[in-house]
């Protein structure tokens, strides 16, 4: 039967991915591993934004804010006390933050939970708005969080940021969290609860008439999305080992939004595909900005070129292929074998 075949093929694919990671861990160079890590984190971030925007229809531009919260909470929990003392040169770190410590998994979870709490609180004012106003208000909250992080020096070290964060986010952690994110969100989306979220996206008035407490469901989606954005931020902070408020500007949200739009609003597999593709493209484009040496000749790099290509790509997608790579469809084995042209979504 097709179902058994699909399960076997999926397990094989998972096994192959696991084997690849195991091989990559030992054989690829540092830079390539770094790119692989960023791929996983970008998938976490993009899938969580897709839950909020693609599946529930809430145009949120606040992802960078949730990432900031997750990154700082996690970093404060895993930074050793000695490193904290060395980093906080303007003002000493406030107790109890100066002595807090937790294992990495707890720290990442805490980052997610605190980001979710922020998401939950922000949702009450923001979700009363619709469409572009929601976008601009959530963007406003992200900016406020950034300004606050810049100013509460005894906790965040202000504009100097945190340095020397232990690099615990290795391939296994990142892909582990990526898998958790995908499983949780895919399972939710494919359940009747997911149908309800999509109903709110399609027609809010009809959803209300069908007995759906629209605000409550939006709140669930927004908070869960914020949780995974926090997790992504936490992992990113640990991967990069330094964070500062400057990192979490609107540009970061834009990058994530780009992945979601390119992959297809309302398609998880589309987001995964575009997450891999765009992350690698972005890294590859770094070469455009670096000076090139051909023999004795040196062509100077062009700073800014990478983002030019990137924004042009987004514009082309939105102008010429608005539904992205996958539209609202999901990739499936049967789709791959071309057996049916059927949508995989309505299981």
């Amino acid at each position, binding site marked *: 039967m097709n179902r058994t075949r699909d399960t076997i093929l999926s397990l094989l694919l998972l096994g192959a991915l696991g084997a690849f990671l195991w091989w990559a861990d030992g054989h690829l160079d540092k830079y390539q591993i770094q790119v692989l890590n960023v791929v996983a984190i970008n998938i976490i971030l993009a899938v969580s934004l897709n839950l909020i925007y693609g599946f529930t229809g809430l145009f949120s531009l606040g992802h960078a804010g949730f990432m900031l919260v997750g990154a700082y909470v996690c970093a404060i929990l895993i930074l050793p006390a000695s490193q904290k003392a060395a980093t906080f040169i303007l003002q000493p770190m406030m107790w109890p933050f100066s002595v807090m410590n937790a294992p990495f998994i707890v720290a990442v979870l805490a980052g997610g939970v605190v980001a979710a709490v922020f998401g939950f609180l922000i949702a009450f004012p923001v979700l009363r708005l619709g469409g572009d106003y929601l976008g601009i208000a959530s963007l406003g909250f992200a900016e406020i969080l950034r300004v606050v992080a810049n100013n509460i020096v005894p906790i965040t070290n202000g504009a100097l940021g945190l340095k020397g964060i232990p690099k615990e986010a290795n391939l296994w952690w990142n892909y582990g969290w990526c898998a958790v994110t995908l499983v949780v969100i895919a399972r939710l989306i494919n359940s009747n609860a997911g149908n309800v979220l999509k109903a709110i996206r399609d027609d809010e008035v009809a959803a*209300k008439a069908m007995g759906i407490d629209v605000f409550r469901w939006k709140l669930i989606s927004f908070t869960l999305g914020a949780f995974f954005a926090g997790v992504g931020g936490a992992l990113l902070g640990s991967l990069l080992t330094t964070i500062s408020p400057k990192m979490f500007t609107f540009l970061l949200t834009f990058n994530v939004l780009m992945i979601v739009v390119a992959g297809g609003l309302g398609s998880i597999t589309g987001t995964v595909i575009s997450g891999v593709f765009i992350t690698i493209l972005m890294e590859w484009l770094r070469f455009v900005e670096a000076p090139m040496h051909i023999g004795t000749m040196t062509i100077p790099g062009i700073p800014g070129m990478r983002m030019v290509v990137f924004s042009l790509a987004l514009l082309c997608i939105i102008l010429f292929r608005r539904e992205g790579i996958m539209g609202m469809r999901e990739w499936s084995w049967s789709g791959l074998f071309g057996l049916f042209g059927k949508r995989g979504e309505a299981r």
Partner: protein
Amino acid sequence: MTERVSVLETKNLVMRFGGLTAVNDFSISVPEGSIVGLIGPNGAGKTTAFNMITGFYRPTEGQVIFQGQDITGLPPHEVCRAGIARTFQNIRLFGNESVLQNVMIACQVRQKLPWWHAPLFLPGYFREEKEIREKSLALLDAVNLRSHADERAPSLPYGAQRRLEIARALATEPKFLLLDEPAAGMNPQESIELMDFIRSIRQRFNLTILLIEHDMKVVMGVCQYIWVLDYGVRIAEGTPEDIRSNPKVIEAYLGEEALEHA
């Protein structure tokens, strides 16, 4: 009409938008198990009355009593939970979802297990969802759409979309069903089928039905009692025979094509 218990009662409902009074002093009492109609020229305030009953508008004055309870000002989803379902004049299906999903979504209001059982893979949720799927398929059977279950809702022909909207409303397990122009855009043959269909679902799901309709054949054929609105005011009420011969009603409709049908 007073011998039976009334399931829904509105008391002096008033709806004002700024200076405009869309509905004034709207009082009706709908006996349990009946099929009743609300008619009137375009812009008479019929849909506004629906919106007040279903919680989309908060009435400026007056009360809505459903099964003896005051539901005035409850938000739409709580009105639905209390047992009132509706369809829309301009069909509002969930456009990116399949026919089956449209019905399953409406089942959520009676779903017992909370959402987080799904991502945690708790077996109870799978079981409940299977029940919901079966219930939805049964409803699709009832409206003759089962063979289209996996199609996208907007791909259905117009009449089928209307039936799907009714099936979706039935999935919320209502006691009281409001249909907003169910025959709009249907040909005479489809209208006759619709009348039988409305009677059959009333019987089968033990409903009380209030409908807005312009097609006089349908209204006169299926309703036991009718209220007539014009400029937000009730100008007549009675059995189809009373309404047909009421001079005020004829005047309100004069010049409208509906007169010919009547």
